[in-house]
């Protein structure tokens, strides 16, 4: 799957590319406005990561150009402008998601997967991971055809892990994913521990293998092939 990263900060784009390339993504880079316009016109991408402040122009115009050309590429805006108006403007102009800087790479990976999934599967949207089957529309999870009663937050967490297979995810990244901006309000990560413990227990109780590994002092990791 091809992903275009439009970002002028080489250190950031290289980190993104390195993190994503482990999965079956093929990442391309455009570091200026002109280069980005050229690439979106010539090629199709499953997902485009778009920074808004670029040398040579406003990233918002690239988004408008993509939509003007009638392309269905998924677009995730990454911007330092984190205000609600900026976010709404981006989504109104046709972006699929809006992520404000600084973000965790795990968060970006999960969102890319979600955008691609939505683009590819449309309404019959589901995820199969080993013995786990997630119906995204009905929001139900089955392990070997047995339904597991997971809460909305637990399904969210499960998808987040699956979107970052074999990656160490820090507790801070999980906290931000679960509680968004509210993560700043709490000093302790106790609540993450509780959520993950519940998720693990519900899955293993349903006969699922334990894929969630605790990395001491750091975070968690979903181990699976």
């Amino acid at each position, binding site marked *: 799957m091809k992903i275009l990263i439009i970002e002028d*900060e080489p*250190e*950031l784009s290289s*980190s*993104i590319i*390195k*993190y994503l390339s482990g999965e079956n993504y093929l990442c391309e880079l455009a570091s200026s406005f002109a280069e980005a316009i050229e690439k979106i016109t010539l090629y199709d991408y499953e997902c485009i990561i778009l920074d808004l*402040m670029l040398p040579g122009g406003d990233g918002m115009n690239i988004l408008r150009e993509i939509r003007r050309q009638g392309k269905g590429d998924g677009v995730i805006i990454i911007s*330092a*402008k*984190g*205000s*609600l108006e900026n976010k709404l403007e981006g989504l109104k102009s046709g972006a699929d998601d809006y992520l*404000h*800087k*600084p*973000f*965790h*790479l*795990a968060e970006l990976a999960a969102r890319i997967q979600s955008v691609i999934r939505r683009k590819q599967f449309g309404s019959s949207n589901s995820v199969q991971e080993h013995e786990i089957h997630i119906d995204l529309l009905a929001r139900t999870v089955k392990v070997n055809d047995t339904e597991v009663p997971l809460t909305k*937050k637990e399904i969210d967490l499960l998808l987040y892990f699956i979107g970052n297979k074999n*990656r*160490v995810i*820090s*507790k*801070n*990244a999980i906290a*931000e994913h*679960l*509680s968004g901006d*509210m*993560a*700043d*309000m*709490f*000093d302790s990560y*106790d*609540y993450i521990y509780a959520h993950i413990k519940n998720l693990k227990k519900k899955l293993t109780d349903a006969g699922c293998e334990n894929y969630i590994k605790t*990395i*001491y*002092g*750091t*975070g968690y990791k979903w181990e699976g092939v």
Partner: protein
Amino acid sequence: MKLINTTIRPLIWYALFVFALSVPAFFLLLNSVWASELDEYHEAMKGRIVTELNEMKLDTAELHRFLQLWSRTEQGITIVPETRRLKNDSFYTKTAFDKYYGETEKFRGMQTTIVLGQHPYRLSIVTNMEETDETYYMVAALSLLFFLLMLAGFIWIARNYSAKIWLPFYDTLARLRRFDLKTNQGIDLSPTSIDEFKELNTSITELTRNSLQTYQSQKEFTENASHELQTPVAILRSKIDLLLQDDTFTKEQTEAISQLIQPLSRLSHINRNLLLVVKIEHYQFGDEEQVSLKQLISAISAQIRDYTASDIVLSIEQDLTLQANRFLAETMLNNLVGNAIRHGGNHTIHINLVQGELTVSNAGDKSLTSEKLFKRYSHASPDSPGAGLGLAIVGEICQKYGWKPSYEFKDGKHFFRIKF
């Protein structure tokens, strides 16, 4: 005080002053004119008396008899024998009781020496000045009438003419009042032919243009500063995320790397909050709507319950609808509750809404420095790990909407109150 009244007021005072001056001036003038007229008349009378009596050629006994009779009938003229001659004629004014008029009157008199036959006589003529009083009243009444006429004129002119003159000024004032930095629109003043107003309008146009520019550049600066700061944080964060994937590190090394995440997270949080404070100060949250405080409290506490072990107890007596920006109202409540959770150490948090007052309380060991609590960059307590911005934002939001934040430490509990 209205501008027009300010201009009329000294005029009225001056007119009153002139009026007050004019009354005694008229009085004195009339008095002296009247007196000198009478003196002239007395002088003429003296001449006539002397001439007529001498022409009659009466002997002394006849003369004395005549003078006696005359003094009885002619009130005011007396002629009595004199031993020595007065050097000069004397003129005087006196007040005396006039038995025929039955009241005290003012008289003008003359005393002189005349010679009848070969003997000197003292002639004194006294005339009632009774008419002068009436004249004074008339003059005073007339003056007052003109004064009132002038007063009415002043006010009429001020109301009609001055109001017309000041019209461009009031127009400018109205436009200035409507001027709003947030709209990013310059002020458009109507042209005027009066030099001072032209100057005023030029200065105002200049001033507002400068303010707009400053406002815009400050706004851009804070936004850019935020961007510039978030980008390096984003790079650091991504590098740490990548380092965590490296399994060649020892356990200790990985742990050390993980410990970088939280301070970095706090850094970007502070950065975001600073931007928020500046934005509130710059009135960048204009959209106001009706916000139900009850709904807001319920929504936020429901959200927060997922993330904390602390018990949250709500007590809402009556809902309160705020006219405010929804985001700011949420932010304020989030910060208050977040603050309570962070420092409450898993104890119960109470959120009360009673009689237009919101109270968020949590357990604590000792009182915080209350006067600095809602100020920017102030550490309320040395143990607080926060950036000191959460409550500053609450303070800013309260200030924006005229709400009153307060703090109290009582019975081992912190009480944060907002009076709406």
